């Protein structure tokens, strides 16, 4: 261990640079591009990294990395230090060595202006939003009776708070100030629910680098350099340091977690089946419009299909849930079902259109020659045959939808995949939760495929010999 550790600092001195990572997407005031000169980086963490590198006698080099994957990338060796608003939590300590804190923040409870419930304890039975796997998430889960709503972006919880989809948001003071309190309809109810700290992380086994970083941070604090940086970026005044990080309360992958998984699987199944039962009739209407409609109807149907197929379903979910919120106030589950249903409707339209197109023209002619109305021709002759052709493709889409439904976690619906990621962070392992998650998806999709195969066999009939021949003269 000591041997490896001794080499870390030596390696950095040899390479002449301290490679540190953050995510520019987190933005101001952490690490962001200088708006005047986009080649330059700005942010209080940029200056801290520069101060540390100077003390190590090397230059600081920034490495862009997706925030939620900073620690795995660190472990893989993509850079030397992760320094980007990483909270000192047991979860982080389980994955990396952490330095002394370089910044202290408070967790702030933000509510709508004038909202009567102003403490976490008072919010029992209410919906409170936060970011997944943050310190605030841990605090909320440990507060009985609170319904936690998880977001993946910093702005969305405050947006939903203003829209009354949730009643409070618990996040750290930096985020609250920049993303929440800029909205005059919101206010802080409790400025100091808990304290947390930001730390830098290095690989386990590189204790010498950690110690060197600690010495550098101590020196920067002693010389007033840290407080000067905080003042420059208008960060809230630093309260006294809290106690060291709480004891590691590692969760285990046990029956309770399995129950959560089953609940996630139910949400996945519920969302998928309802979305598909919306997509199939919607697709049918679109396909019939496309085949039999007038010019305007045909064009509209064509536009719908191309628009919904040609843009990411993730974007459509965002627009439906956040973009349309001022006009149509959908709850998350409804938005998820509608969003996936409308998207898959475009695909089903093409499936139905192809299936109807595959029926020999003689079938429609024979039906017409018997005196059936247009609608009877469709209902009694064409659609039953199209259904059989379309069934394999529709089964395929349903199974695909089952997995695509994991996208709805971006609009706060905790389904199977989201539950898996939360559990994986809690138990510090992706292996077991990952396998359990995969098994549950399979346990849902395989019976669906079997069911469809049996239905297909029941509707089955061999092709009619000669049905494809057209009359000569």
């Amino acid at each position, binding site marked *: 261990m000591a041997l490896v550790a001794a080499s870390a600092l030596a390696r950095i001195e040899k390479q002449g640079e301290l490679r540190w990572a953050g995510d520019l997407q987190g933005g101001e005031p952490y690490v962001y591009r200088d708006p005047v000169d986009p080649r330059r980086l700005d942010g209080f963490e940029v200056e801290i990294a520069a101060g540390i590198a100077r003390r190590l006698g090397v230059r600081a080099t920034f490495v862009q990395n997706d925030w939620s994957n900073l620690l795995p990338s660190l472990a893989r060796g993509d850079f030397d230090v992760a320094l980007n608003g990483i909270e000192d939590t047991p979860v982080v300590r389980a994955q990396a060595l952490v330095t002394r804190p370089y910044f202290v923040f408070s967790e702030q409870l933000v509510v709508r202006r004038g909202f009567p419930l102003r403490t976490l304890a008072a919010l029992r039975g209410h919906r409170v939003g936060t970011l997944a796997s943050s310190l605030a998430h841990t605090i909320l889960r440990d507060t009985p009776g609170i319904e936690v709503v998880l977001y993946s972006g910093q702005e969305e919880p405050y947006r939903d708070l203003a829209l009354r989809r949730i009643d409070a948001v618990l996040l750290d003071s930096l985020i609250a100030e920049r993303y929440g309190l800029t909205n005059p309809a919101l206010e802080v109810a409790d400025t100091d629910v808990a304290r947390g700290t930001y730390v830098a992380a290095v690989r386990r086994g590189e204790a010498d680098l950690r110690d060197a970083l600690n010495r550098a941070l101590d020196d920067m604090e002693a010389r007033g350099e840290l407080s000067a940086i905080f003042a420059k970026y208008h960060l809230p005044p630093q309260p006294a340091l809290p106690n060291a990080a709480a004891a590691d309360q590692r969760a285990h992958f046990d029956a309770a977690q399995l129950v959560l998984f089953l609940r996630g699987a139910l949400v996945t199944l519920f969302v998928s089946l309802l979305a598909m039962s919306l997509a199939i009739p919607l697709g049918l209407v679109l396909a019939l419009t496309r085949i039999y409609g007038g010019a305007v109807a045909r064009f509209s149907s064509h536009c719908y299909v191309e628009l919904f197929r040609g843009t990411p379903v993730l974007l459509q979910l965002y627009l439906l849930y956040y973009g349309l919120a001022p006009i149509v106030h959908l709850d998350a589950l409804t938005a998820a079902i509608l969003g996936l249903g409308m998207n898959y409707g475009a695909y089903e339209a093409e499936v139905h259109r192809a299936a109807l197109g595959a029926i*020999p023209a003689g*079938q429609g*002619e024979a039906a017409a*020659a018997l*005196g059936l109305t247009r609608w009877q021709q469709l209902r009694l002759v064409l659609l*039953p*045959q199209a259904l059989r052709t379309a069934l394999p493709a529709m089964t395929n889409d349903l199974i695909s939808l089952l997995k695509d439904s994991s996208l709805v976690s971006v609009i706060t619906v905790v389904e199977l995949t989201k539950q898996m990621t939360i559990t994986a962070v809690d138990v510090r392992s992706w292996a077991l939760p990952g396998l359990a998650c995969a098994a549950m998806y399979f346990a849902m999709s395989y019976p669906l495929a079997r069911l469809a195969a049996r239905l297909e066999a029941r509707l089955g009939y061999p092709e009619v010999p000669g049905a494809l021949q057209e*009359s000569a*003269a």
Partner: protein
Amino acid sequence: MSIVRVAGLRKALGSREVLRGIDAHVEQGETITIVGPSGGGKSTFLRCLNGLNPFDSGVVEIAGFTLAPRTPPDAPQLRMLRVRVAMVFQSFNLFPHLTVLQNVALAPVHVRRDSPGRARERALELLGRVGLRDRADLRPAQLSGGQQQRVAIARALAMQPQVLLLDEPTSALDPQMRGEVLAVLRDLARSGMTMLVVTHEMAFARTAATRVWVFDEGRLVESGPPAEVCENPRSERARAFFTRP
């Protein structure tokens, strides 16, 4: 009074004139066989009679209905006409997802609103008439081609039409199966059903028809009793057709 009367019927597909002015009539109970070289307009003419093909100009009066030029094939007023003027196709066009019985009973139940019980009884009767009563519960794909065409004939008869149009009913069949279908048609002709049959089956055209029509290049070039038309055609075109190798 003629049950079918056609005057000045013209139809073009793009720049090609498929029908160049057809004048013809059919009396109740007649069996007309329509013969002539391929591409002469026989099938198109037949499909104009029940509105499956719209025509450009002229008049079609059939089973008490008058068809105007350019009537779209899905026009609602064609439905009642098609109940009285049934059609049998070259490729049978049975509905593969329905049983033989359901194929025959479909229109009586959904167009005439017969009770399912009565429609079933009638369908079995018709299947008996074409010799397939014991195949009622099979799917079309389980039948031979000749059997399928006989079911298609039963299906066409189910609405008790006044005129039966048959578009090359035996062309998709091998010789042995042709015989069984032609036997059914002869039987129908004897029973007094008014039929127009487009066919290449010269023996049938001669023996079963009251009159033979010869179509060539969009014109009805010859019409008369089989003996006259087939043995002693007057027009150049018809002579060329009957004396080809």
